[in-house]
C-alpha cells in the first residue's frame, strides 16, 4: 500500500521539478512574442475574413499597396507597386507597375528553381485573384472584386456552371501587359480600389505552391512578405521567421506630429523587418493572456475588462506597472457597436415603427454603458461613422441619443403604444459570451423603464448569423469594424440592394438613401462626397434602423523592451516595424 503512495508522490514531485526548471529559449530572444485572441483558422489569403487569421497572413504575404504605418488618418501608399498607379481620366482603368526583384519565399514547391523562390509577376496577381473568385475555393473575400472588376462576376458564374474552373480563361478587366505591368479595368469608378489592394485577398500567391500543396496549402503558406512561415502547432502557436531575401523597404521617416516625441521615429529609414521573427501564441481566455504578459512572456496585451481597475487609475497606468517599464497606449478603434432592427419585421420595421425605434434609442444612457461595460474606454456614437474615418462629421448630434425617458415615452405614445401597451414582447437575438449577455441585459432593463418588454435569446455564432441572414431576427446587437478607411464601408450597411444575406442586415431600404449611395459610390474622396455622406447619415439617424451605441477605444500595454507600437485596426502588416531590445528585456524581466 505504501508503495503506491510513494509512486504517486514521486510522480507529482517529478512533474513539479521538471516544470520549475524552465528552459529559456535563447533562439527566440529577438523575436516578437505576440498573443492572438482566437484560434487561427488557416493561413491562405482566400480565407481572410477574420481579423486574427488575417493578422498572421499579413506578415507572410505582401500586396500592391499598404497603409502608411504612422500617418493618420490612414493613407494608402505603394508597397509592391512601383509608385502609385496610372489612373485613366474616366477612373476606370488603373495601370500598376510592379517592383522588380520581389521574390517568393524559398520553398520546395518551386521545383524548377530547386526550391529557390522565383520572382513575383503581374501574372501571379491575376492568378491569385482568379483563385479568390474560383467557386471551388469557397472564398469569403470575393466581395472586394465582385461587380467592380470588369467581367469578373461573369467569369465566376461561368466557372460555377461549368463545375470546373478554367484558370486559362481570361478576365476582361485583368491584363498583364508585361511581367511588371498590371492593368485593371473597372465596370465603373471604384474609389476604394487602392484600399482593397492592401487587403490579404489581393496578395499574390504562387501557382506552383498552391498546386503542390493542394488543400494543405493553408498549412504551408508561401508568400513574398517580410516573414517566412516556419511552423504551426494548431490551436497553440505559429512561428514566422524573418525573410532573409526581403526586398528593400524602410521604416517611414515622417508621421503624425506626436510620433517623434513618442519615440516612433527612432528607427526612421532603417531596413525592415526590424526583428528576427514573430511567435503568435493563440490564447483564447483573457486571464492567461494577461498574466502571461505580466510575466513578460508576451510583449503586448490589451487590458481585459475585469483587469482594468487594477491596471489603470485616473486614465493612467498604476505606478506598480509603470515602474516595471510597462507603457500604456490609447487608441480609438474604427468601429461602431449598434442594435439593429429588421426593417422587414411587421412590428419594429418600416416607416410606421420609426417612433418606436427612436424611443428605444432614447432609453439608452451611453455614458452608463461606457462606464459599466467598457471601463470608460469608448465614446458615444451619434451615427455609423467612427471618428477616425474620412467622412466623419464631428458636428453631427443625433437627436435620439439618450438618456431621455420623457421624450422616449412621448415617442412611444406617438408610435401607438402608450407606456408599452399593445406592444408585444420584442425578440432580441444575441450570441454567447458573458459581457455581451450583460450588455443586452442592460438594454432589456432600460427598455423596461418605458414599458417595453424584451426577450433575449442567446445563440451560437452561426445560429445568430443565419437568423440575420434569413431575415428572421427581429432585433440584434453587433459591432462593425472598418475594412478600409472610407465611410462608404459603413454606409453600405444601409444600402437597399445590400440587404440580407448581404451586409445590410437591418434590410433598410430607402430609395432616397440608395440614390445618394449610388451617386457617392463613384466619387473620389473630398468635400463634395462628404456632403453627400452627411445627408445619408442624417437619413439613417432619423429613420433609426439602428441604435448607435459607441465607438470603442483600446488601451494597450507594451513592455519597455518592445518598441514602435502604434495601433490601427486596418494596418495588419505591423510586425515588421517592431523592435525587441533583448538586453533591456533581460533587465526588465527581473522586475516582473
Amino acid at each position, binding site marked *: 500500500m505504501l508503495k503506491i503512495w510513494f509512486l*504517486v508522490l514521486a510522480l507529482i514531485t517529478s512533474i513539479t521539478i521538471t516544470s*520549475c526548471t524552465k528552459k529559456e529559449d535563447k533562439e527566440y530572444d529577438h523575436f516578437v512574442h505576440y498573443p492572438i485572441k482566437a484560434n487561427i483558422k488557416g493561413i491562405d489569403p482566400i480565407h481572410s475574413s477574420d481579423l486574427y487569421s488575417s493578422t498572421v497572413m499579413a506578415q507572410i504575404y505582401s500586396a500592391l499597396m499598404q497603409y502608411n504605418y504612422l500617418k493618420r488618418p490612414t493613407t494608402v501608399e505603394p508597397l509592391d507597386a512601383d509608385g502609385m498607379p496610372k489612373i485613366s481620366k474616366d477612373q476606370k482603368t488603373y495601370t500598376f507597375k510592379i517592383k522588380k526583384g520581389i521574390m517568393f519565399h524559398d520553398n520546395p514547391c518551386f521545383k524548377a528553381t530547386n526550391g529557390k523562390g522565383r520572382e513575383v509577376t503581374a501574372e501571379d496577381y491575376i492568378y491569385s485573384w482568379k483563385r479568390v473568385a474560383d467557386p471551388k475555393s469557397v472564398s469569403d473575400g470575393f466581395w472586394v472584386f465582385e461587380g467592380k472588376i470588369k467581367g469578373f462576376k461573369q467569369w465566376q*458564374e461561368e466557372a460555377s456552371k461549368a463545375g470546373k474552373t478554367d484558370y486559362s480563361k481570361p478576365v476582361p478587366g485583368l491584363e498583364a501587359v508585361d511581367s511588371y505591368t498590371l492593368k485593371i479595368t473597372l465596370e465603373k469608378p471604384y474609389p476604394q480600389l487602392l484600399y482593397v489592394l492592401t487587403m490579404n485577398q489581393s496578395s499574390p500567391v504562387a501557382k506552383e505552391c498552391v498546386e503542390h500543396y493542394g488543400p494543405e496549402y493553408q498549412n504551408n503558406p508561401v508568400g513574398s512578405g517580410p516573414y517566412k512561415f516556419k511552423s504551426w502547432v494548431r490551436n497553440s502557436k505559429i512561428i514566422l521567421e524573418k525573410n532573409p531575401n526581403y526586398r528593400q523597404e524602410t521604416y517611414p521617416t515622417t508621421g503624425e506630429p506626436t510620433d517623434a516625441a513618442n519615440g516612433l521615429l527612432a528607427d526612421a529609414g532603417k531596413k525592415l523587418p526590424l526583428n528576427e521573427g514573430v511567435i503568435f501564441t493563440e490564447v483564447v481566455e483573457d486571464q492567461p493572456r494577461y498574466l502571461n504578459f505580466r*510575466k513578460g*512572456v508576451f510583449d503586448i496585451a490589451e487590458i481585459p475588462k475585469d483587469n482594468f481597475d487594477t491596471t489603470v487609475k485616473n486614465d493612467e497606468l498604476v505606478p506598480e506597472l509603470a515602474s516595471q517599464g510597462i507603457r500604456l497606449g490609447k487608441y480609438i478603434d474604427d468601429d461602431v457597436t449598434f442594435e439593429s432592427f429588421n426593417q422587414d419585421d411587421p412590428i419594429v420595421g418600416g416607416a410606421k415603427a420609426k417612433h418606436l425605434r427612436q424611443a428605444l434609442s432614447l432609453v439608452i444612457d451611453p455614458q452608463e454603458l461606457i462606464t459599466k461595460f467598457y471601463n470608460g474606454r469608448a465614446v458615444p456614437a451619434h451615427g455609423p461613422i467612427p471618428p477616425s474615418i474620412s467622412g466623419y462629421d464631428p458636428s453631427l448630434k443625433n437627436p435620439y441619443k439618450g438618456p431621455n425617458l420623457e421624450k422616449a415615452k412621448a415617442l412611444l405614445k406617438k408610435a401607438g403604444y402608450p407606456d408599452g401597451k399593445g406592444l408585444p414582447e420584442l425578440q432580441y437575438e444575441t450570441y454567447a459570451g458573458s459581457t455581451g449577455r450583460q450588455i443586452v441585459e442592460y438594454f432589456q432593463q432600460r427598455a423596461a423603464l418605458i414599458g417595453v418588454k424584451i426577450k433575449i435569446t442567446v445563440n*451560437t455564432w452561426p445560429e445568430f448569423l*443565419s437568423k440575420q441572414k434569413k431575415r428572421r431576427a427581429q432585433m440584434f446587437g453587433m459591432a*462593425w469594424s472598418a475594412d478600409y478607411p472610407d465611410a462608404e464601408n459603413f454606409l453600405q450597411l444601409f444600402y437597399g440592394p445590400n440587404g440580407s444575406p*448581404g451586409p445590410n442586415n437591418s434590410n433598410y431600404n430607402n430609395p432616397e438613401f440608395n440614390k445618394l449611395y449610388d451617386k457617392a459610390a463613384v466619387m473620389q474622396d473630398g468635400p463634395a462626397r462628404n456632403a453627400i455622406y452627411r445627408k445619408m447619415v442624417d437619413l439613417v439617424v432619423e429613420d433609426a434602423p439602428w441604435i448607435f451605441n459607441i465607438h470603442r477605444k483600446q488601451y494597450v500595454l507594451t513592455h519597455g523592451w518592445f518598441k514602435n507600437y502604434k495601433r490601427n485596426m486596418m494596418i495588419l502588416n505591423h510586425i515588421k516595424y517592431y523592435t525587441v531590445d533583448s538586453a533591456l528585456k533581460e533587465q526588465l524581466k527581473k522586475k516582473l
Partner: protein
Amino acid sequence: MLAYVARRLLYLIPVIFGVTILTFVLFNVVGGDPVYQKMGKHGSEAEIKILRHELGLDRPLPEQYLFYLKQCVTFNFGRSWATNQNITDMLTAGIGPSMSLSIPAFFITIVLSILLSILIVFFRNGLMDKLLQVFCIAGTCISVLVYVILGQYFFAYKWGMFPISGYDSGWDSRWQFLALPMIIWVAVSIGYEVLLYRSAILEEVFQDYVRTARAKGLTEKVVLLKHVLKNSLTPIITSIMMEVPLLITGALVLEAFFGIPGLGGMIYQAVANSDFPVIKAMTFIGSVLFVLANLASDLLVSLVDPRVEFN
C-alpha cells in the same frame, strides 16, 4: 469466451449504424446552417448558392447520408467547414496533447480516490467519514473555473511554480505545461470519484461473507483489503471503463485556459462554429469507443469476478 467477444463485436455494427443515423438526423436535418458563417460578413445570394453546392448541402438527404456513412467506414471524414483542415489530421494532432493531460491525471485520480475511499470506509461510522463525504461533495460543487483561475494566479503567476499557459509538443518539454492542469484535474474530479467508490465499497461491506470473515476472526484491515475491495472492483471497473472514452477528449475548460491544443478545445470550437463534419466525426469515434469500453469493462469484470457468466 471468444464467441462471446465476437458476438459483442458484431453487435457494434447495428449500434454504430444507429449512431450514424441519429447524428445525421440531429445535425443535417434539424441542425444549424454553417453557410452564413463561412461566407464572412459580406456576401450575396449567388455566393451562398455556390457555397451550398461546394459543401454538398444542396444534394438530397439520403445521398448526404450515404456520403457520411462512407466517410465513417473509410475513416476519412473529409474537411472541416470552419478551418478547412483534414479532419483525420485534426484528430491525430489533438489526441496526443489531450491524452498527455488526461491519462496521467486520470490514473492519479483513480489511485488516490481508491485509497481515500478505503480510508473513509475504514472509519465509516465516525465523524471522519461524514466530514470527508461532505468535503467531497463540496469539491464537486466548486466550479472548475475557481481552481483554474486561482491556480493560474497563485501557483503560476505569483509563485512562478509553473508556466501560466501554453504547450510544447516536445516529449520532455510538454510536462512543465501539463503539470498545473493535471493537478487541477485531480483536485476537481477526486471528490466525485471518492463518493462513487465509497458507495461501491460500502455495498459490499454489509454482505454476509464479510460478516463471516469477521466472525472467523480476521482483522478489519484484512477484511477490507482482501475481501471487500476485491468484490467491489466490479462496479469500480465499470465506472472507470465508462470514463475511458472521455479521456481522448481531454478537458474542455482546462484546455481552453491552459492553451493545450487538444481535442477538448476542438470540440468546443466545432460546436461554436456549427462545424458539423467535425462534430459528426467526433460523435462517431466517441460512440465506437464507448461501445468498446463497454465490452472491455464486461470482460475485465469477468476476470476479477468469476461468478459472472457470459450470455
